[in-house]
């Protein structure tokens, strides 16, 4: 009897303790979406940041002059209602007259002109400066709701850049009183987006509230809390205990196992990141090396079992690719030469090239070790003696800059931009050490696509350039990546084809 009483007392105490101190639950009951990010969020101003997490947050807090429809890649109005090229280097833009900043002040053309001119300014040191300096000469106010951009040269991608990279700030934000303050918006962000900052503890928690003055369609969910939880296992536990509604960058195995339970839903969406091998076709590392022979490069392409890598190592919505871009990107031609998995043909091509006994290939990689090892194994299987050098990204970059890398397993996310320009120039510009082809004509062709206004013509240029890359097997394109999310079963989180998570489009079921 005594023992019985003690048991009851213990159970009651445990229940009372659990009730008293159990954590708060996320969900529709308080109209609060709780999201987790592993990366510490330290700066809310996307004009001064670059990483993926900041792009996602900028979608919530900021608005740009234009939007790009993720389905059709068409330009949509946003802060600007329309644009017109006065001539090839003069762009007139008309703004909405009902846009307000988060502090309630009205947005004016002077704010927009200031933002662009500031980012171009040498003093800004903005992470968006490179983008703007590529084409902007100056921006000037021309009317109550209009402004004019004077372009330094013909640049048809100007609208895309305006949509993707430059967040509008109030006139004088960064240099009020002549004193430069690049961190002016780092924590106390005043922007124009669908959510405004309610509180921000850098590295810990960001609380966003719906901006009731937002000029566009207001988001369905009232509050978004973004917590920095570095450990994915802890995020998983929070999701299982109801403390989280949204996780991203979830490892496939975890996403699949937790997604199979009623506690969370696994969503697998596109990611604009692609994986590929870059081959030193020019012979920077060895002018007479095997990689300068097109048959060897074609053999490497045939040797790689890309569909299985995509299916089993990357998983989710990952797919094998055979062109040097993401199929969802504008201008990404997928009708180029394909080299299907065929180890016999690879061996034959190596023999034709005079390498029937194979050769030693130092292959560098910095991420996705399993995929890197699979690549090495496939190449070894056709007789290439692969010396896999798995290093940190910085080490790879240093060695590549010194032209010491004959081949590397690279990836590129295009900064979330669904246009081939976002991957082509960085990898085939003659100034870029990522370009191992040393092909001036190819570099010129890719540059010309960025200077062509007609979109159909741009497509044709990219088709030609991508066709050349494929024919000469300058790369061995591998696979697209997939983005794995775990979301609360109560959350409706739509996925877009460009792979950019837009939490502002979420709603409760």
């Amino acid at each position, binding site marked *: 009897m005594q023992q019985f009483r003690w048991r009851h007392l213990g159970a009651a105490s445990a229940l009372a303790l659990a009730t008293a101190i159990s*954590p708060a639950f996320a969900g529709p009951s308080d109209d609060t979406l709780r999201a987790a990010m592993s990366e510490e969020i330290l700066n809310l101003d996307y004009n001064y940041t670059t990483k993926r997490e900041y792009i996602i947050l900028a979608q919530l807090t900021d608005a740009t002059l234009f939007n790009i429809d993720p389905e059709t890649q068409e330009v949509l109005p946003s802060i600007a209602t329309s644009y017109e090229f006065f001539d090839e280097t003069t762009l007139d833009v008309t703004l909405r007259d009902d846009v307000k900043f988060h502090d309630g002040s009205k947005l004016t053309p002077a704010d927009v002109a200031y933002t662009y001119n500031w980012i171009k300014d040498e003093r800004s040191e903005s992470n968006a400066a490179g983008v703007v300096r590529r084409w902007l000469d100056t921006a000037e106010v021309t009317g109550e709701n209009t402004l004019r951009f004077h372009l330094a040269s013909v640049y048809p991608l100007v609208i895309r850049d305006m949509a993707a990279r430059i967040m509008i700030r109030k006139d004088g934000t960064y240099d009020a009183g002549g004193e430069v303050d690049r961190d002016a918006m780092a924590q106390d962000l005043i922007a124009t987006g669908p959510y405004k900052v309610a509180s921000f503890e850098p590295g810990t928690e960001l609380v966003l509230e719906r901006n009731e003055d937002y000029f566009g369609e207001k988001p369905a969910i009232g509050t978004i809390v973004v917590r920095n*939880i570095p450990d994915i*296992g802890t995020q998983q536990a929070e999701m299982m205990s109801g403390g989280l509604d949204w996780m991203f960058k979830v490892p496939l195995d975890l996403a699949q196992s937790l997604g199979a339970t009623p506690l969370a839903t696994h969503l697998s969406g596109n990611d604009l990141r692609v994986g590929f091998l870059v081959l030193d076709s020019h012979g920077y590392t060895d002018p007479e090396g095997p990689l300068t022979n097109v048959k060897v490069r074609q053999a490497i392409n045939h040797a790689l079992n890309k569909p299985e890598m995509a299916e089993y190592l990357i998983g989710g919505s990952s797919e094998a690719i055979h062109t040097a871009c993401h199929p969802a990107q504008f201008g990404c031609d997928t009708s180029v030469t394909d080299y299907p998995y065929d180890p016999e043909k690879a061996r034959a091509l190596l023999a034709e090239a005079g390498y029937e006994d194979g050769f030693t290939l130092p292959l560098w990689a910095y991420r996705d070790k399993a995929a890197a090892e699979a690549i090495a194994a496939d190449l070894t299987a056709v007789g290439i003696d692969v010396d896999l050098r798995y290093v940190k990204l910085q080490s790879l970059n240093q060695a590549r800059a010194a032209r010491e890398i004959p081949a590397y397993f690279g990836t590129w996310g295009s900064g979330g931009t669904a246009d081939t320009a976002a991957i082509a120039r960085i990898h085939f510009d003659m100034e870029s050490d990522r370009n191992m082809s040393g092909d001036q004509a190819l570099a010129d062709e890719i540059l010309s696509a960025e200077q062509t206004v007609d979109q159909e013509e741009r497509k044709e240029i990219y088709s030609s350039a991508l066709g050349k890359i494929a024919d000469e097997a300058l790369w061995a394109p591998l696979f697209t990546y997939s983005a794995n999310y775990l979301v609360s079963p109560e959350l409706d989180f739509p996925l877009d084809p460009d792979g950019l998570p837009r939490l502002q489009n979420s709603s409760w079921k």
Partner: protein
Amino acid sequence: MLRYIALRAALALAVAFTVSLAAFLLLNVAGDPAQAIAGEDATPDVIEAIRDRYGLDRPLPVRYFDWLGGVLQGDFGTSYYWHKPVAELVADRADETITLALSALSVTIIIALPLGALAALNPNSWIDRFALGVAVSAQAVPNFWLGLIMIILFGVMMPIFPVSGDSTWKHFVLPAFVLGASSVPAVMRLTRTGLIEVMGADYIRTARSKGFRGWPLLRRHAMRNALLPVISVLAVQLGQKFGGSVITESIFAINGLGRLALESILGMDIPTVQMLIFVFAIVFVAMNLLADILNAALDPRIRIG
């Protein structure tokens, strides 16, 4: 004694500077801080702008002595990531780590001392074996594993404690247990050994002859002497808790110095890493010094020159 303390303090500073130099060199050899700050897909112009902004294009000796000159004037530099003075950053985060370290030490004391005493009073019994089992298990279990198990048990299966964050005392319960558990074996075994040794001493026999038995004997006569080495070990363990908080803080998303250290190392935020290493080294050496002083103060047989 004062001369000894001054000597050890100077040694602590020398250790801190040496370690910070090693960290500075290793981080720079390991890669390009500008690339780490910019992220994986940063374009060369962005990386170059960052390199220029933080003076990362200057020679290593210039950068190190620039930092050293600042330190001698009390300026530890500005974080590349946080864009604020490192000293301010560290001060902001110190509360969480001090709370965690002290809580963890309390957990160690609460578990290890009674367990060690029980084992000493019942040598070679099942209690002793159980205590030994606890010690061996706690020593063998890595922090990150124990942390995840505790999260599953008390955060998911029985949602009693929050599993991440640091806003309330409840958030510190699981991490304090995890961090404190790793010190239990050393303290428990030392308590047991010390007590067994003391229990065989003449003065304990005398106390027994005067009628002391059990807890009164332990408390009034045995513990005082047996705990002398334990106290100095606890001081050292406290120093280790600061350094050891890196994993625990990351698992439980506690915004303390340990997590700051991990994020700074991964992000190659060199000024922050240098100051943290400086702080950790000073704390560690200070705790060792405290252990020596405590030993000297508590045990009249020990005299330091």
